[in-house]
């Protein structure tokens, strides 16, 4: 009953045989070993499992792996090039203490990538509205907002 799927994750092509009921988050974490994507609620509320599907932010706990056949996924592991070569957004979070336990952080980073592509200079209110789709229980959000502001500036500086 397994189905074979082919997809790109962080630019690498994978071909795997999976059960149709396998969740995308479980596929990424256990079949591909990309454990940077975290699962917080399994019902699409907390946003911890957010990844990009064809460059759009999606909840990987609400999708089956088979639904991503032939498509492109990006996870936090592909955002920069590891701890030594982080993405500008990751630097923003590091500088501003935008994380504590770090469990929700990968989902927040992935939510921000398409947001900042569309809106490279967001207001605080716009940032807070975007972030309201991701629950963080540690920080109280203030430093995340500051981290996004710095990350956006660093991204802008990079591209100019």
């Amino acid at each position: 009953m397994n189905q074979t799927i082919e997809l790109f994750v962080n630019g690498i092509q994978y071909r795997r045989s999976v059960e149709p009921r396998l969740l995308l988050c479980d596929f990424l974490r256990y079949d591909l070993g990309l454990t940077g994507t975290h699962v917080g609620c399994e019902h699409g509320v907390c946003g911890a499992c957010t990844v990009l599907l064809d460059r759009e932010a999606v909840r990987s706990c609400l999708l089956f792996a088979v639904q991503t056949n032939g498509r492109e996924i990006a996870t936090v592991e592909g955002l920069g090039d590891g701890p030594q070569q982080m993405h500008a957004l990751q630097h923003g979070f590091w500088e501003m203490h935008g994380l504590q336990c770090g469990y929700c952080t990968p989902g927040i980073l992935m939510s921000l990538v398409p947001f900042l592509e569309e809106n490279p200079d967001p207001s605080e209110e716009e940032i807070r509205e975007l972030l309201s789709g991701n629950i963080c229980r540690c920080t109280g959000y203030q430093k995340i907002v500051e981290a996004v502001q710095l990350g956006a500036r660093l991204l802008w500086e990079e591209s100019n």
Partner: protein
Amino acid sequence: MTTRQFGQPLKRNEDPRLLTGHALFTDDVQLPGMLHVAFWRSDLAHALIRSVDVESARKRPGVVAVYTAEDLGEFWQPGPLLVPPPPVEQLEFHQRTQVPLAKGKVRHAGESVAMVVGESRYLAEDALDDVFVDYEPLEAVVDLEAALAAGAPLVHEDLGSNVSARVTQTKGDWAAAESEADLVLHRRFHYDRGTAAAMENRGIAASWDERAQRLTVWDTTQAPIAIRNGLAAMLGLSEHQVRVIAPFIGGGFGPKIMMFYPEEVLLAWAAVQLNCSLKWIEDREENFYATTQERGQIHDAAIALRRDGTVLGVRDRFLHDAGAYAPYGLTVPINSQCTLLGPYVVPNYHSEFTSVFTNKPIVTPYRGAGRQHGVFVMERLLDAAARRLSLDPAEIRRKNFIPPEEFPFSNEIIYQDFAPLVYDSGNYEPALDRALELIDYERFKREEQPRREAAGERVGIAVVNYIEGTGIGPYEGARVTVEASGKVSVATGVGTQGQGHYTSFAQVVAEQIGVDVSDIHVVTGDTDLFYWGAGTFASRGAVVAGNAMHAAATKVRGKILKLAGEKLEAAEEDLELIEGRVQVKGVPQTSISLGALAAEANPMRGAVQPGTEPGLEATEYFGPERGATASGVHAMVLRVDPDTFLLEIERYVVVHDCGTVINPLILEGQIQGGVAQGIGNAFYEQLHFDENGALQNASLMDYLLPTASDIPNIVSDHVETPSPLNPLGVKGAGEAGAIPVGALFAQALDDAYRDIELEVREIPLSPNRLFELVGEALTREPA
């Protein structure tokens, strides 16, 4: 001179791993052939179990084993009592602790009846559908007062009542205070349950290596060493055969310390039984039942005052909801009892509580751990008194502060650490003044509030105080080692759940050894790397483990100076540690690197002096005689939408005193995060149990956690009154932000509706509840 790193807002050593998805969390542990566990949990809160049939589950393909209580044999034992009752004279205590799997009876919804081990999580969960439990439902014990009524159903029949404990503590003579007073006010207060809702649910991975005869457990625990010791004892293994690792943990907040969770015990047992590796990861729905909760209390309190607002005494009688079992002893209600006294001189105090068993999930400490309730009661009593005596809320507080020259200040009762409740230090008035200044209190009351009210707005201001007993014993330890690479490795037994220990502990060590914080590698929570310790709770990591770090680093510094003095032929006092080297002060040419020195200290040839220890290493312990008392003031300006009863927090100020600050960036994060949880507790989050003990909102869709749109920016400032009880002078800060928020909301709402004499006497609130309370106040007959 090396740039000072202690006290600086350094960014964290651990962040690059967390930011890039390279940090190991418990669910990331994957071992070859690993099996997966699912639990069959009761959906009834109170029922007799007539029979459990797991035969068809056992036959399902992909199922490796199914266990019920009967299958556990002698391993089935109630869990240990983690904290014994305190040495208080007037005490009654009935020990009932959780069991691995329910036998004969379930006592709360979500209690496990059977455990399925399967080849995948999907298969194990499938097999839960094949388990059949034949129940005889019983009436559930839900309401605290009904639980104590004659003829109430009993959670533990053999006790003959639902009383878990009764404790009375007194100071002075309440009756005398009452008779002497110009004003005595009586009030009833309710505080209801919420859940910590760490973003990472609990999880355990356990692996038994038959050839090495060793058990390795990865556990989302705040107390890995206690888990190691307990598991070894339960399984009949030596402590050296068990390694417990608390890897990166996605938020703790208290409930992750409730050792021993049934799952912790069962996974370890099954790994040995089946000679395998297995894993269980709690899902969010399970987390609402199977992880501990907090906050259900009902207080009947009274305050006695002089006409000028001087407090003569407080009397409080309260009921505490313990849930179905009470493994954590009386920590939570004792904290309520003790923290009520706050930063005030209360010469006479009578406090008695009854802890009550109910058919609800187990109660253990959750960030604040009972302190919220005490603060709420005292602050509300002061507000009610201020209104009656026509005093300003800030001024009645100022009037009753313990003066700075009165420390150490004894409250003559026993605290959760079993030590007398003696405040080590404090200076409350400067913090209050600073908070009033930052919130612009006087101008708001004089100008802004009347102007906005004239324009039809509902706006209120509030200022509340709290103290927090932090950094309690018994002890923690630390080992500091200078390696031949010149880098420093550090280990301690406490676990880390996001507090930044990898950085703050490194800052403590860097202060002594003169290396860059980024060259200090800290390990927390791996029992193979540090053997002794208690755990991360009670805002004690920085205080207790931090001072152990300081002691070990100071000793290593001594070894470095001694050896370097010999090598450089210089007196120790002429040397300085700077940027990873030891040099003669002001003479950088005469120096030796710490790496070279570490190699010299561990020679491969030649004799060493008798009694010499190899290497540049030291292990030290720190145990405070009692906790360090932190304190603070929160202030807020709140706007209520008079139609929807939604709130907007317009300004929020925190001025706090946690003694010496190790890393202000991390501290600010702790405070802001604590306030956010406090706001959730005050106005968003409430667990709703029905009369059968079923939880009505066990999902994040129905249990409302505040988001980035709900939490305001917080303005914070410090007052530093170093603790005299530890060399670093630090006090804990982890829980402070969450503690006074309910009281703050209540006062601000009262202020916004002072024209109708609204008096909020409960937390949590919600727009709907506020609508009801305002409606009641409007229709109340004038007094």
